[in-house]
């Protein structure tokens, strides 16, 4: 959406391309029908306007042939549309082979996306990196209520339903940065449940994945150690994990490993920068009302140290 005005018609994958072409075709058919109906109405209104002094025209009750025509004609059109639909479904959402392991797992939470790369052992949140030219099978789950993942340029939308798993394919022909939203009202923070998908060349992706696989090193500098102390003593560790530092006992919040590498904070409510992270830590509720992170009432010093730690130590 940053690049294109109308993402639905700016597909970046073969799947959404199939949808986009189908959509344009159907819109053309609809436009023609609308023109015909509007034309009949408009011309009729002008041509058959009441002339002063004229009485009622002789009654005319219908024309069987015409009525059959406008019954059978649309039925044929509708059958044709159905054939296109069946084919379009197959092209845009191929059924995954049974028992194929997913390449990516996305778990919806109120109000963020948990992202796991099971084969690489990487866990991150809200920002997904993928290599171009490969079709990745994504498994969708939910930890609480129904969410809906939508990347208009990349794939069909799919609901994330607690108690059920769904699958879609994610792929792109060319690199790019794509924005998406949760599209099923999931609570107060729904509007800010955004996601970013970064499609990069296979080499860049491999490099990114390698970085993500590294655990966070223990803090070395003083400021880092201060920040680490705040993180581990101010209840952050109960919900947030940082690989190599701590595993959260509740696991109810985004994994913060390599937070510095991400472009967004709070599932898209802020861009990732030191100032923004500081603001967020001071009062998340003011920035994203309804998010499940409470206001921990950190002092400026604590927030500053924590920001420093998270932004400079992956």
């Amino acid at each position, binding site marked *: 959406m*940053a690049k294109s005005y109308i993402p639905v018609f700016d597909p970046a994958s073969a799947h959404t391309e199939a949808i986009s072409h189908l959509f344009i075709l159907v819109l053309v058919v609809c436009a023609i029908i609308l023109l015909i109906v509007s034309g009949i109405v408009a011309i009729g*209104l002008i041509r*058959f306007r*009441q002339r002063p002094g004229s009485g009622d025209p002789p009654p005319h009750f219908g024309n069987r042939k015409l009525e059959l025509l406008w019954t059978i004609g649309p039925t044929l059109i509708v059958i044709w549309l159905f054939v296109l639909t069946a084919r*379009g479904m197959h092209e845009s959402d191929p059924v995954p082979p049974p028992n194929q392991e997913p390449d990516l797992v996305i778990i919806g939470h109120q109000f963020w996306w948990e992202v796991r790369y099971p084969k690489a052992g990487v866990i991150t949140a809200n920002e997904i990196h993928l290599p171009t030219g490969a079709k990745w099978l994504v498994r969708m789950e939910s930890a*609480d209520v129904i969410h809906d993942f939508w990347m208009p340029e990349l794939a069909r939308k*799919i*609901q994330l339903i607690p108690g059920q798993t769904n699958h879609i394919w994610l792929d792109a022909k060319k690199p790019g940065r794509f924005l998406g939203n949760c599209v099923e009202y999931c609570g107060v923070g729904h509007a800010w449940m955004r996601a970013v998908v970064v499609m990069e060349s296979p080499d860049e992706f491999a490099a990114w994945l390698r970085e993500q696989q590294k655990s966070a090193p223990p803090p070395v500098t003083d400021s880092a150690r201060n920040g680490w102390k705040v993180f581990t003593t101010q209840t952050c560790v109960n919900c947030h994990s940082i690989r190599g530092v701590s595993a959260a006992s509740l696991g109810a919040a985004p994994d913060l490993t390599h937070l510095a590498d991400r472009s967004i904070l709070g599932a898209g409510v802020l861009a990732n920068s030191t100032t923004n992270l500081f603001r967020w830590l001071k009062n998340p509720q003011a920035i994203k009302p309804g998010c499940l992170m409470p206001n921990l009432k950190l002092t400026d010093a604590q927030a500053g140290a924590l920001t420093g730690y998270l932004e400079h130590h992956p």
Partner: protein
Amino acid sequence: MSVTVSTAPAVATPPTEVKLRGPYGWVATVDHKRIGILYLLTTLFFFLVGGVEALLMRIQLARPNNTFISPDAFGQLFTMHGTTMIFLVVMPTLIGLANYLVPLMIGARDMAFPRLNALGFWMLPFGGFLLHYSLLAGGAPAVGWFSYAPLSETAYAATAGTDYWGLALLVIGIGSVAASINLIATILTLRAPGLTLRRLPLFVWMVFINSFLVILALPFLNAAIVMLFIDRHLGTHFFVPAHGGSAVMWQHFFWAFGHPEVYIMVLPAFGIISEIVPVFARRPIFGYEFVAGSTVAIALLSFGVWAHHMFAVGLGHPMDMFFSATSLLIAVPTGIKVFAWSATLWGGSIRLTTAMLFAVAFLIQFTIGGLSGITFAVVPIDWQVTGTYYLVAHFHYVLFGGTFFAVLAAVYYWFPKMSGRMLSEKLGKLNFWMAVIGFNTAFFVQHFLGLMGMPRRVYTYADLPGWGLLNLISTLGAFLLGLSVLILLWNIIISLRRGRLAGDNPWQAWTLEWAATSPPPQQNFDRVPPINSRRPLWDLAHPENPDPAVGGRRSRDGFVLEKNRVGMVTFLVSESCFFLMLILAWLFYNSRAMTGPSPAGTLNAHKTGMYTICLLTSSAAIWLAEKQLRAGRHGWFRGLLGLTILLGGIFIFGQGREYLRIYHQGIVVSSNLFTTTFFTLTGFHGLHVCVGLILLLLLMRLSLAGDFKPGRIEAVKSISLYWHFVDAVWIVVFSVVYLKLLL
């Protein structure tokens, strides 16, 4: 074929209405015309409330990252706006119009059940009050008008708002079903001589078919709400996946109601347009039979398309494809109507009054909405645009640009009949142009917003290119639309005082309501004109060129029905749908493996079987009682009636013992999904039995007071039918639950 005939007169006995003056007269009225007007005034009030909610949202959305309204308040606003507009405005407006017009259009004095009519109306303000009381009780519902589970469960929706939502909908639903039963009974039994079903005005025909949709679909909603309530307050897990429930089940149940609901909101509008366009084109409707037949087709198909609201759920391609096929198919009968209305214009002599202007706008706007609907039926397209502002645009085009514009046309068309005065055409045209421009400005751009990626139900959005501008345009259009409503209100107020006197038939229309005075007297007609065709008043004005006598001269329908029986049968059909949902829930949840109490270990089929025999015997008893009453043997009647009550009482006693025995084992409704579905299903059946017992006791009292001596047995026949129904349901429930049929 059997024919039900009774000794009751064919015309509704006029309600003994004391001449009540002033406001109390309106509160106590059972006159369908007053009730119709009460409906319209109430819905007008709620329309303003819902409109303000909409405008508040549009202010918030006019700029990106706006902070005018908090996300929590916004969630309440969109939930209340949707719920209000659907249940407190559109549905009751159409019911109110039907209430006013149907008896007049069929030459009857009043509806079949005037007191039921009044009861149905008062459910509306009561329900509206309940819904809005939530604002004082912790917050309005904030989970969307369709309350998806598990968001609507207590874990995520902790305030009582959702409960008030459910209660309000149950109450309003009672009103809608009551009104529909009334309409069906009225249309089937109170038509003037010569007005066969094939000669019905299209408004009446569409209201008739629509009423079937209401009685069949609303029980689906009631069942779903009841199950949600039980989840929220008794700790059960119908829709809680973490404990074996199913969130998707809520969606199926809700949309099984929700889709017929949208047709319920549009069929009467089709009826309105089918009346107005011919009159102002001065020609009969083009192809009456196709228009009437396509209504039946739409009604039937509307029950088979619901899962097109669930294409993003991942039901699997086969399911998606079947529902896509039916959804595409339903476009055909809808298209037939649009073409018929357009063809009616062709070759006519068109008068562009305000009513006609609104009708023409309906035609175009509804076509746009219908076409965007077709795009949704094409599944891959739905996968892109569902849940976005493209969807918001679609449903506002069909419901506002469609139904509401039809209602506005109806107001301008029938206001003279209701009040005796004409609305100002000048103000009307101003109203029209502001409405059309405002509406299309507000909602056309929303198609683009959806394609640009804007989801629905967001309280704000990022400053992406074009989003702010289009949202601002939409907000401006909405305000223009709001202003047009004020013009309408002003027009109504001043026309009531200073409008031109209308006379009986200012539009030279052809249906029966225009043969009465404006406004009609309490009994509607002193005499009804002769009816030989679909346009009786045309025939009277043009005796040299009457319309063809549909079905032959002086024909009648091949059946005579009695209104109490029709009313009861219709009600029972509706209740069957409710039980059907509970039985489906039972089958679904109990076909899966689960831990905890099981039917085999908990239930006692033998004991319950004995009580079942009691219940079935009671049916035989009341059947015999009816025969005795017909033969005039009142002593025997009372004896057998007493036996019925006794046997029914034994059954309830047995049920109670069974419940108590289970409870003493430490098993409660929330133990697992078996106990939940068991208690829900048998509990509701038991409730129906108790209601039946109360009715039977009332009959006994009436009999002791000598009420049946003159041979008035309608009440007995209706109540015994209810009792048989209750027994029939128990046979199914017993077979499914205790004998494990179908599992």
